[in-house]
């Protein structure tokens, strides 16, 4: 069983090595088999692990070899198989495989076909390490690894400098978070003398709530999550990351990598529930991000950017859920989000593919008939994300919302507002893309075509998942037995025990909340329909003519520009100042000055050497006298 477990990440690594080392030698067809094939194998093995889950019930941690080992510090290379990692395993390999499959079609024309799959396999490998690791350093390997792959894949088309900048930005912002993660890890180590989950959580369980050390640890780890999961203030890399090929956006920047932060916090749940301050900060960050990103998303015209901001917003929801202790809810939303967001991205990819690279939704429209499969699956995705029953998004979002309501009504109001915005911008996207008449060039119009089967089959698979995904955790009132809830219960048992148990909502309240939300969401969908389909206004009016507030929102609140002025430019200026002034004019001048001083002194003193032998002898005698004199003294 251990071998099988080990093989799960080994397959993608193998794929990476084969494709990476034989970069140009391997024919495309073989790559098309190896790339997705390795992930498929991983997926099959993951299912196998999932089915034989009981096998790991007693000893969930499997050691392979000792990685860093010192007296007092032992970091084994070990995997942990528990419900949480199992769930992530299935998502990563499952969704990963579907996206790999899709990529075979999407990247068909690209000269870097092999490289692409090599990177993708490396990504899956890193992600698997991240979710399987039995201690924080192993998670960190994956954590940095996925950041690297993200960097490589965003800058995949590396001839374009903007893409490279986007890649670098992503990597650096992730690194800021990584530093937080690293420091959090150190603090964990100094506090618990171990970095393994099992040891830490076993000790943490008995610590007092609000402990300052725990608060610091959790905050530091949260910094890592903020970087990776693109929350305020480190979110700006994610929209830029859309520079990468669309399957990359689907896999890395929607389904898996960006949710690593959520996974990490869920994993460390027990630490977080013991630090209420951190939980509050997480909640506020999540909510702010959810609303902020949703507002920006409404005014974006790039199909992928809308989805990117939507991802940020949905991640905000997950953090909001985590902050009120709804770990299962957050994980549930993570799962469904992986399904429908991957679906939406792939659908967007299909559209872009059909339009020959066009991403501006103002130049789309009326694609419903030309791309029927894409349109239908995209519709399912939109409904799912908007939260309309019985699609998956509804259930997962509802679970978070009701948990939020139990914690605070005000939070709930804001969360619902965010939910409404989600519905609005998603339907806006849907309507502008697929309804009315085509607004692009004639040439594009003539070339419009439905994507090949390699691309549509993944769409359909994901659409099914997005449709039915919600049923894995049906709420009680729908007669569900909370499958995922029960499945994950052992993982969150300690955390839930600590969490002050609010009484469960009465069914009436729950129905009311659900109804209200649904009604508002439907109203927003209708508004979008009215505004973008019925009114007949084809093209979204020019941003410049809009009121100032909207213009600011359309320009993403100038956050990028602000970062550039506040951080980037002063940093560069500081760098230049340190080099030109401090280094060259100050420190080095002192160093050279010492040398010059010696030279100058020599130049002056050498006149003593007049050449007068009598004088030399006199000095010599004086010297002898002094030597002898000091000899007496001593």
């Amino acid at each position, binding site marked *: 069983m251990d071998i099988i477990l080990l093989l799960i990440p080994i397959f993608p690594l193998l794929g990476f090595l084969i494709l990476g080392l034989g970069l140009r030698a391997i024919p495309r067809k073989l790559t098309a088999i190896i790339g997705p094939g390795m992930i498929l194998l991983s997926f099959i093995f993951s299912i196998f692990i999932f089915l034989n889950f009981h096998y790991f019930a007693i000893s969930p941690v499997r050691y392979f070899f000792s990685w860093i080992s010192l007296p007092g510090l032992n970091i084994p290379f070990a995997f942990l198989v528990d419900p949480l990692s199992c769930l992530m395993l299935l998502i990563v390999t499952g969704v990963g495989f579907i996206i790999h499959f899709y990529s075979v079609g999407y990247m068909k024309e690209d000269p870097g076909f092999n490289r692409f799959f090599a990177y993708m396999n490396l990504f899956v490998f890193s992600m698997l390490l991240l979710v399987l690791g039995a201690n924080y350093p192993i998670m960190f390997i994956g954590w940095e690894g996925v950041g690297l792959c993200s960097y490589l894949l965003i800058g995949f088309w590396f001839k374009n400098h903007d893409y490279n900048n986007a890649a670098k930005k992503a990597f650096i912002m992730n690194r800021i978070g990584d530093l937080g993660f690293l420091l959090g890890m150190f603090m964990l180590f100094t506090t618990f003398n171990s970095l393994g989950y099992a040891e830490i959580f076993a000790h943490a369980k008995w610590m007092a709530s609000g402990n300052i050390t725990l608060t610091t640890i959790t905050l530091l780890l949260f910094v890592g999550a903020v970087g990776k999961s693109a929350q305020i203030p480190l979110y700006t890399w994610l929209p830029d990351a859309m520079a990468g090929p669309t399957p990359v956006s689907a896999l890395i920047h929607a389904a898996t990598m960006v949710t690593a932060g959520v996974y990490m916090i869920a994993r460390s749940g027990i630490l977080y529930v013991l630090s209420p301050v951190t939980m509050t900060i997480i909640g506020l960050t999540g909510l702010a991000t959810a609303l902020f990103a949703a507002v920006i998303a409404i005014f974006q015209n790039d199909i992928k950017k809308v989805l990117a901001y939507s991802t940020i917003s949905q991640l905000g929801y997950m953090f909001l859920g985590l902050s009120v202790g709804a770990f299962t809810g957050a994980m549930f939303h993570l799962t469904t989000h992986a399904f429908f967001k991957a679906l939406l991205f792939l659908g967007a990819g299909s559209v872009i593919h059909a339009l020959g690279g066009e991403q501006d939704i103002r130049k789309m429209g009326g694609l419903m008939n030309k791309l029927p499969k894409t349109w239908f699956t995209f519709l399912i995705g939109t409904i799912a994300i908007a939260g309309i029953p019985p699609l998956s998004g509804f259930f997962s979002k509802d679970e978070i919302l009701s948990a939020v309501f139990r914690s605070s009504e005000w939070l709930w109001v804001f969360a619902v507002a965010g939910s409404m915005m989600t519905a609005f911008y998603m339907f806006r996207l849907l309507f502008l893309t697929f309804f009315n008449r085509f607004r692009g060039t004639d040439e594009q119009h003539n070339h419009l075509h439905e994507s090949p089967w390699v691309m549509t089959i993944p769409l359909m698979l994901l659409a099914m998942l997005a449709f039915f995904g919600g049923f894995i955790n049906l709420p009680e009132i729908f007669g569900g037995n909370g499958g995922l809830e029960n499945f994950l219960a052992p993982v969150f048992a300690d955390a839930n025990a600590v969490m002050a148990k609010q009484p469960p909502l009465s069914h009436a309240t729950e129905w009311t909340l659900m109804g209200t939300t649904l009604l508002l969401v439907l109203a927003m969908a209708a508004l979008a329909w009215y505004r973008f389909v019925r009114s007949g206004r084809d093209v979204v009016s020019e941003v410049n003519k809009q009121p100032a507030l909207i213009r600011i929102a359309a320009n993403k609140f100038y956050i990028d520009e602000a970062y550039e002025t506040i951080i980037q430019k002063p940093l560069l200026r500081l760098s230049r100042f340190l080099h030109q002034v401090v280094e060259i004019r100050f420190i080095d001048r002192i160093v050279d000055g010492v040398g010059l001083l010696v030279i100058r002194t020599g130049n002056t003193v050498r006149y003593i050497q007049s050449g007068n032998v*009598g004088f030399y002898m*006199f000095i010599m*005698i*004086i010297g*002898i*006298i002094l030597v*002898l*004199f000091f*000899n*007496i003294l001593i």
Partner: protein
Amino acid sequence: MFTEYIFFFLSVLALYSAVMVLASKKPIHSVLFLTLTFFAIAGHYVLLNAQFLAVVHVIVYAGAIMVLFLFTVMLLNLNNDERSPKPVWAKTMVSIASGMLLLVLIGIFRTYDIKSAADPTLTQIGLVKNLGQILFHEFLLPFEISSVLFLTAMVGAVLLGKKEQI
């Protein structure tokens, strides 16, 4: 007591002639006074029962070296006195310096005490036989090497003394 008298006599003689070496106006007088000093010191050697040294001293210094000096003085016809003695302030300064050196030296030696003072007048080490034994046993190699030194010095002196460049 007798030894002491001789000691004082020789010392005073040596110091007087040493001072006169410096005080004389003519170099030829200086050379003669220097000879006198050397003889006084030879007397000291005798007093210390260092007969061998006394003899060698007379031969080398009063004999060879003194002759060299005299020859030089006469060769160069240096009978006139110094045309321009050093200025007074310089003389004062160097005198003070020498005086200080003397003070310091005396300061050092004042506290010096020798541990087992054998009677110098009775030791036999200064006899030619004893010294010869040691010189040709323990110090044979340096002795031979010193002959090379002499040869070198001779060659050097000849080379320097030659008028034309070689």
